[in-house]
């Protein structure tokens, strides 16, 4: 199956490990991610101001590209757009929802983009976790060659996958989609109420200690509950929970660092894929010692 894929800017720079591992595990599941031949920034955040239409131009322009992929025969009559980054997912999906519900807004945006074909509102924005659920987690299990036995994972959702509920991929108060996935990978799930707490998002630019305080709470609660690592799907959350551990440790010397995975990295390990798709050198806290402890690395199970 071929599906249109929107990477987003961070997936091409700081989160290259997220993209590489996602493409590899998708291929294993028989899904080929076809990157949009032309795409721009998703818009980064969905604007909450009613009359701020200009910030919806960027996401809608990307949705037009999905129609182009279909018209050019790169994708065979499939108007779904797959995303990996939670932030891109949220922005694209909300802009899509807004123009579907407000034809006047769509008309204005189409009018501003008069050099493009009109957007007809037919694209469906999808997160990779949703696609996995649609394919069936049992299909994921069939591909597990290196079960993550004994690995204590705390799933972290943050905000963008769940809120507002109109675009959420799961129950905003009690999400389980990541838990279901990690169970099939053979990991142990550590539930904790901080999995839905905001990571601090772009406050990192204004004041990194707002974020490091939040990260300290999120990480220590997971750890106290028994987690050995966090797993998530957002490069910004990853930055705020992974790279920020330097600052967390500066302020709290007793703090012990904890690896933060993209869910696709865990899948790649469990699928026994080639180590080069893991991209662990881009993780700030190196997860390799933990995986070695569990005897999960160095076993290349790919036939």
């Amino acid at each position, binding site marked *: 199956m071929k599906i249109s894929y929107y990477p987003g800017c961070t997936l091409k*720079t700081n989160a290259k490990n997220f993209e590489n591992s996602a493409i590899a595990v998708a291929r294993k599941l028989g899904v080929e991610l076809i990157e949009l031949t032309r795409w*721009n*920034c998703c818009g980064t955040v969905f604007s909450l101001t009613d009359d701020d239409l200009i910030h919806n131009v*960027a996401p809608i322009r990307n949705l037009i590209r999905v129609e182009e992929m279909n018209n050019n025969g790169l994708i065979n009559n499939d108007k779904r757009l797959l995303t990996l980054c939670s932030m891109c997912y949220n922005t694209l999906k909300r802009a899509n929802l807004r123009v579907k519900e407000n034809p006047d807004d769509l008309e204005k945006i189409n009018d501003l983009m008069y050099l493009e074909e009109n957007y007809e509102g037919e694209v469906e924005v999808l997160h990779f976790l949703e696609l996995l659920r649609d394919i069936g987690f049992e299909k994921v299990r069939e591909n597990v060659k290196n079960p993550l036995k004994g690995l204590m994972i705390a799933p972290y959702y943050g905000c963008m996958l769940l809120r507002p509920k109109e675009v959420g991929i799961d129950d905003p108060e009690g999400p389980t989609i990541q838990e279901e996935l990690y169970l099939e990978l053979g990991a142990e799930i550590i539930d904790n109420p901080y999995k839905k707490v905001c990571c601090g998002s772009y406050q990192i630019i204004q004041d990194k200690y707002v974020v490091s305080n939040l990260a300290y709470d999120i990480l220590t609660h997971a750890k106290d509950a028994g987690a050995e690592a966090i797993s998530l799907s957002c490069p910004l959350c990853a930055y705020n929970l992974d790279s920020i551990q330097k600052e967390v440790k500066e302020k709290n010397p007793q703090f012990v660092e904890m690896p933060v995975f993209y869910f696709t990295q865990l899948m790649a390990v469990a699928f026994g894929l080639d180590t080069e798709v893991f991209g662990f050198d881009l993780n700030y806290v190196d997860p390799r010692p933990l995986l070695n402890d569990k005897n999960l690395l160095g076993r290349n199970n790919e036939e």
Partner: protein
Amino acid sequence: MKNKDESNRKLDAGKIMDRIAKASEQIVSGVKDEEVENWVTIYVMGRAYKVPADLTILTAIEYAGYKFLRGCGCRQGFCGACSTVYRKKGEYKLQTGMACQTRVEDGMFLVQIPFTPAEKASYDIGKLNYNVNSLFQYYPELARCVSCNTCTKACPQDLEVMDYVQAGIKGDFKELAEKSFDCIQCGLCAIRCPSELVQYNIAQLGRRLYGRYDSPEPEHLKKRLQEIQEGKFNEVMEKITQISIEEMEKLYTEREREEE
């Protein structure tokens, strides 16, 4: 001594503009009115002039009696100096172009943009990191791009300006360099951008980073730079700046040329 040099250079610049105006005299004033069949009316900064229909915006404004000190350069569509903004009668749209490459049309409202006072960062290319953060460090407004595509519409070179800006944001220096390669730095993208980016200077930094860190160093360039540093061309350079216009023209027409 230095001041004197500078004032001489200023005088020379004035002379050069006179020479250029003289060289194109037959186009703008050698025309006999009775030989012109088709006339159009243009408005230069609001004032109406009747000009021959086959002129460019640049020569039409000169025909109308203006003399360019700025807002005019090579007259060949290469240098990017003659950025122009115009509107056609009855249309709301402001259009952009290079005055030397755009033909006048009846009812055009015209003005030349002599200079773009755009932000241009100063950096030591050898000390920068080869990643997207270097672009954001010097041009943080890059993140404000809303993908409205106004820059692309403004570009007289027909470049996909928005696409190269977006390539910059995603750290694809190769795409940025290739898509912006034909930029003549006229500044029209920056003047039209609602997010206040300076696209062409961002692209220049991107191309420099790509050239410095991602392209093999050309051997012949290294050799030539060394020759220049060692003063190989000092003497000819001195000579060429002293000769008369006639000698210069002779040198130019008889220069060594690669086969076409």
